[in-house]
């Protein structure tokens, strides 16, 4: 459990945040300059806030009133930086083991587990300059994890990598987040990374927390549209596998609002899944349509109309859980859509984001 309540004046910018985060992955999201890095630096002990309190697992690491400020090496906080920051004169193996000495009494995860998880075995004897960008960042992640921290901070670990390298590392990060029982604070301004990795989402704007909660609830909030660049991300749903249809290669997933049929996914019945529905893949019908190829037609109620952006507006539909649909302004007025209206949401495609932690 992490409790953060800090203030810091940085030139014209004032950071004033307060949040609590628990197990799993907590994402700090916001545009650059929102104060994300300052927060993780304060948690790590690399920046001293003007006032406030930081508590990790019941241990106060910073408190301005009682003048407590633990130096970084005594906080038990791992940090993966934007740049790899590997030690250039040490082999990968010695980089990885650099932080291990503080870890007595925490045998998990073992050196071999982390090597396996991050695919580092072939790299161990190399020097950092002989690694690609993606490999370097994997080593940096392994090094931080092997120091067996109470908490792992990751400050946009993928930001300095190109798309291909990012795609290479994301699966490793997913496994790490899922397989290690290590609370992680993940800083990012890329919502796609957050919807794949995070459980809790904290949205920051100009040094303040503007929203905090589970990822599905936050991604479905229309009022955050100006802050969250959803891009291709859409809304996140959590469900469990109900049945597999081997004939048509489909899987039925149950969620709070009903059932969705998705292209076959691996995993036993009962396994938890995270699904993503893009707003532009959702259409709205005012009557139950017949003779339609779309498999997923969910009854729902319109709960909120977003503010217009040229031709399109996002509409929030509650189908048991809120999802967003991107409609033209014209459709909205011609169909007379307004909050409270019973509709059918036609979901053209559903992306399976990941098998969720609770599946294990």
């Amino acid at each position, binding site marked *: 459990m992490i409790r953060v309540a800090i203030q810091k004046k940085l030139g014209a910018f004032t950071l004033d945040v307060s949040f609590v985060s628990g197990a799993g992955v907590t994402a700090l999201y916001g545009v650059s300059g929102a104060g994300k890095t300052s927060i993780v630096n304060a948690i790590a002990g690399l920046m001293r806030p003007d006032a406030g309190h930081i508590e990790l697992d019941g241990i106060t690491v910073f408190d301005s009133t009682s003048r407590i400020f633990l130096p970084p*090496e005594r906080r038990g906080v*791992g*940090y993966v*930086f934007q740049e790899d*920051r590997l*030690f250039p004169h040490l082999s990968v193996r010695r980089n990885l083991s650099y932080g291990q000495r503080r870890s007595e009494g925490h045998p998990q995860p073992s050196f071999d587990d982390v090597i396996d998880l991050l695919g580092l075995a072939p790299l161990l004897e190399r020097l950092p*300059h*002989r690694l690609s960008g993606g490999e370097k960042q994997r080593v940096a992640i392994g090094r931080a994890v092997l120091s067996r921290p109470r908490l792992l901070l990751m400050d946009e670990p993928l930001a300095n990598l190109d798309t291909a390298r990012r795609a290479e590392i994301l699966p490793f990060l997913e496994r790490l987040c899922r397989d290690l029982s290590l609370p992680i604070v993940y800083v990012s301004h890329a919502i796609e990374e957050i919807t794949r990795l995070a459980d809790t989402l904290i949205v920051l704007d100009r040094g303040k927390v503007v929203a905090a909660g589970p990822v599905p609830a936050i991604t479905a909030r229309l009022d955050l549209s100006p802050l969250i660049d959803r891009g291709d991300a859409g809304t996140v749903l959590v469900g469990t596998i109900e049945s597999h249809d081997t004939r048509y290669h489909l899987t039925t997933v149950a969620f709070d609002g009903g059932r969705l049929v998705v292209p076959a996914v691996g995993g036993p019945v009962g396994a938890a899944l995270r699904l993503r529905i893009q707003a532009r893949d959702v259409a709205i019908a005012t009557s139950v349509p017949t003779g339609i190829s779309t498999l997923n037609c969910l009854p729902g109620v319109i709960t909120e109309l977003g503010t217009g952006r040229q031709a399109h507006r996002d509409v929030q539909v509650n189908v048991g859980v809120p999802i967003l649909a991107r409609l033209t302004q014209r459709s909205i007025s011609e169909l007379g859509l307004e909050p409270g209206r019973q509709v059918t949401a036609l979901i053209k495609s559903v992306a399976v984001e990941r098998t969720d932690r609770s599946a294990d």
Partner: protein
Amino acid sequence: MLSPLEVEIVLLSLRVGFWAVLVGLPLAIAAAWLLARTSFPGKAVVDGLLHLPLVVPPVIVGYTLLVLLGRQGVIGAFLDNVFGISFAFNWKGAAVASGVMAFPLMVRAIRLSIEAIDRRIETAARTLGASPLRVFATITLPLALPGILSGTVLAFARSLGEFGATITFVSNIPGETRTLPLAVFSLMQVPGTEAAILRLVLISIAIALAALVVSEYLSRRVAARIRGTPP
């Protein structure tokens, strides 16, 4: 090949240079680290004082040492009475004079290489649980090694050539303080010694070249190890 007298002069010079560098090095590393990585009131003054031997006439440095460390000197009398250590007119005094003159060169080279180290790497080490002392020993020092090596060689060469401060502080005593430059100077006072002087000049050049070659080789190897580029 070398006459017994020449051997004596060379060995004395090497011994003076060796001790001047050996004792000066840890102090130079500490001073370089303080200047590169900390800020404290009066830092500019300390920086200036450290550089003083580079800019004041060597004879002034030698005279100051004589006043401070001579047998009647403030510090010299104390060291003599309490520890029985004397720097007056012996080779240890010559080493002190050489060391003081070479110190700023060592500090400069080491400081530059410490300043060139990415501090973010040191910060990363702290987040991995390393105390500032461990960061210094395992990250800063190894990464500064090329500068430490070149500073050491530079200081050693400077020590071998030290003349003014040495002759002022500990005089020119054969077998005790008469290093290579002082021996050349002494021979020049005697007519008909051109051949002997030429031999000492060649010996000096040979030692200096050897030191340069060794240092070049070592710093290439170290730099290759750190940056990973093949030597």
